[in-house]
C-alpha cells in the first residue's frame, strides 16, 4: 500500500486543487479508496481528513470497498430506461445472485448502475470492464455473463 501511494503522490505538488485527480489515481490503483490512503492524502495536501472524505463521498465515481474482478456497469440513461434498462438490471443481479447493486461473495463481479454512458443509440447497454455491450435483452445478458466479456462479433 505504502509504496504505491507514495509513487502516486510524488507525481503531485500537494496543492488542494489536486484532491480529485489524486483520488482518481489512487482508486485506479486499488479499485477503491482505502481509509488510510485518504488520511495520507489529507496530510499531503494539508487539509483535515474530513475534507478529503467529504469530497470523496460527494462524487459517484469513488468507492470505499474493494470491487470484484469484473465490473458490470448498467446504464441508467433515459434512452436505456425506456428501452428496458430496469429489466437488464433485474436480470443481471438475478443471474449473479445479488440483491441489487453490489459485489458477489466470490469477488468475481461488481454490479453498479452508472449515469448515461452516451451509447444511447444502442440502448439498453452495459459496460463490462470498460467494454460497451449494446442492444441488450434479458437473454443476451445471460449469455454475456455466462462467457464473461468476449467480443461477440462475427
Amino acid at each position, binding site marked *: 500500500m505504502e509504496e504505491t501511494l507514495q509513487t502516486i503522490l510524488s507525481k503531485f505538488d500537494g496543492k488542494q486543487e489536486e484532491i480529485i485527480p489524486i483520488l482518481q489515481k489512487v482508486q485506479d490503483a486499488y479499485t477503491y479508496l482505502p481509509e488510510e490512503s485518504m488520511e495520507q492524502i489529507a496530510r499531503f495536501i494539508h487539509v483535515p481528513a474530513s475534507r478529503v472524505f467529504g469530497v470523496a463521498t460527494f462524487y459517484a465515481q469513488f468507492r470505499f470497498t474493494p470491487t470484484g474482478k469484473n465490473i458490470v456497469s448498467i446504464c441508467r440513461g433515459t*434512452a436505456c430506461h425506456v428501452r428496458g434498462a430496469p429489466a437488464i438490471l433485474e436480470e443481471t443481479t438475478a443471474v449473479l445472485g445479488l440483491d441489487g447493486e453490489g459485489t458477489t461473495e466470490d469477488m468475481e463481479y461488481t454490479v453498479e448502475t452508472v449515469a448515461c454512458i452516451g*451509447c444511447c443509440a444502442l440502448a439498453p447497454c452495459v459496460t463490462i470492464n470498460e467494454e460497451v455491450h449494446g442492444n441488450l435483452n434479458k437473454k443476451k445478458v445471460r449469455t454475456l455473463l455466462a462467457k464473461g466479456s468476449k467480443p461477440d462479433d462475427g
Partner: protein
Amino acid sequence: MTADHRTVLICRGTGCESSRSPAIQAALDAELQDSDVEIKFTGCHGMCQQGPIVIVEPEGTFYANVKTKDAPKIVESLLHDGEPVERLYYKDPATKEQLPTYHDIPFYAKQKRLVLHNCGRINPEEISDYVEAGGYQGLKKALFELSPEEIVDIVKQSGLRGRGGGGFSTGMKWQFCQQAKGDVKYVLCNADEGDPGAFMDRSVLEGDPHAVLEGMAIAGSAIGAKQGYIYCRAEYPLAIKRLQVAIRQAREQGYLGKGILGSDFEFDIEIFQGAGAFVCGEETALMISIEGNRGMPRVRPPYPAHSGLYGKPTLLNNVKTYANVSQIVNKGADWFAGIGTEKSKGTAVFALTGKIANSGLIEVPMGVTPREIIYDIGGGVLNGKKFKAVQTGGPSGGCLPESFMDVPVDYDSLIAAGSMMGSGGMVVLDEDTCMVDVARYFLDFTEKESCGKCVPCRLGTKQMLTILEDIVEGRGKPGDIELLEELGGGIKGGSLCGLGQTAPNPVLSTLRYFRDEYEAHIFHNKCPAKTCKHFITYHILDSCVGCQLCRKNCSAEAISGEPKGIHWIDQTKCHKCGVCFEVCPPKVFSVEKRTGDLEIHTGEGESL
C-alpha cells in the same frame, strides 16, 4: 473506376467502437496495406444504431452494420474493381429500399451539419486533417486581423446562444469577461454532459476535438486569458484520450502554448476529469469542483465573469458553443446569422434516441419541427408503434405531446411549451411508455444528483419522487396531483441553482399534457401504457400452441400447461417479470398484458 484515390472512412465513435469497429479497421488495414486505398478512422457519423459504419469516398458508398467477416468482401470491391457490397447497404426502415450512398439516405439529406461538419470526415487524431479541412483559420484571423473587441462583436452579431442549455447570448458573456478587470482570467469548456440520454458533446470531442480547442483559444485571445480548462466527465474515456492527443498535437504545431502562430499570444489548455456528479455541469459547481471541493453550487452574484475559478474572471461555454465559434470567426457573423430562426441562430444538435427507428446524432437548422426530425430524419417511431411524446431538455426539460409536432424547435418555443432545449437530448416515447413512470424516472435522477445543499431541492425532489413512486406502485392518494403541482412551484421558485429550479419540469409538463395518465393510476387502478408492474397482469390467450417456452422461462414457476395444450398463469405466484411476454414466439403472440380490471392487485389503496 480504379482503386486509387479511394478513401475508406471507418467510424470509431464510442457507439461504433462498442460494435467492434476497431477490429474491422484492423482487418481492412491488414488487407489494404500495400494498396493506394487510404484508410481513415473518424469520429461519429451519427447513425450509431446502424454501426459499425464504413463509408467509401469519393462515391459515398455507405455500409451499415459491418462485421469483421465482411472485410474481405469490401476489400475485394475496392481492389479488384468489384461491385460494391450491396448486401451491406443501408435499408430504409420505411420503404425497405436499399440505399447505396449516404447522399441517398434521408437521415443525412435533411440535416445541416455545421458543428458536426468534420465528424465522420476527418481523423480526429491527426491535426493535419483538421487543418486541411480549414481548421485554425478562425484563430489565425482572430490573432492577426481582429482586435479582441472585434472578435466579441462578431460573436455578438452572429446571434450565437449558449449550447449548454440556457441559451444565453455568447457574445454578451464574452463581453462581460473581456471588460472584467484582472490580469489572470480563465476560459473553461463545459464537457460534463451529464444529461442522461445525450451524447452530442461526446461526439464532437471524439470526432472533432480541435474545433473545441480552436474556439477556446479564440475566446482566450478575446477576453485576455492564458489558461483554459476542459471539464470532461470521466465516463467518456475515448473523448478524453482524443482530447489529450489533440492538445499534444496543437502544442507541437504551435496552436497552443507560448507565441501562438508567431504572435505574442499565449494560451494553453488542461483537461480536468469530473468524478461523477451531474450538478458539476452547473457553472459555479464546476469551478468549485476544479478547485478540489464538493461540487455544490454557490449563490450568484458574484457571477463567474467577475469572480469565477479561483476568484478570477472566468468564461464558461459548452463544447458546441466553442465548436461554432471557430467557424463563425472564420466565415463571418452574417453567414451564421443567416441560418436558423429570428432569435435562435445556427443549428441544433440532438441526440435522437428512445423509441425511434434511427437513433443517432443529428444536426438541423433551428426552427425545424419535431415532425421533420422524428419522421423524416429519424424514420418514425420504432416498430411502427404509435407516437406519444418527445422529451427534450433531459431532467430539466419536459415531454411534448403530438400537438407540438409542428411547432418550430428553438430555445424560446420549447420554454413556452414547458420544456427546454437543454443540451440536446431528444428522447422519443411511444404508446408503451408510461408518462408517470417517465416523470418518476427523471425525479429519481435529479433526486440522486441533487447536491443536497439547499432545502427545496434536497428534500423537495425526494418528496416528489416518493409521491411518484407511491403513484406507480398503487399507493397514490387523491390530492397527490395538486400536491405535486404545489411542491413543483415551490421548488422551482426556491431552489438555489438550475438543477432544483428545473427539476420539477418533467413532472409539471407531464401533468400538463398527460394528466389523465396520473388520474388513471390514482383513481382507476390502471396504467394505460401497461408499464407499471403494480397495475398489470399477464394472461395467456386461447391461441397458445403449448410450446412450453414461457413455462420453462418463468422463474416464479407460475405457468402450467401440457405440451401442445393451452397454458395458464397462476396470478398469485406471478412476479410480473414479463419473461413470458418476451419469449412467446412473435408468430403465436399469445401472452397478453392487461390493466385496469384487477381486483386482486389493488393492495391497500381504495379502488374507485
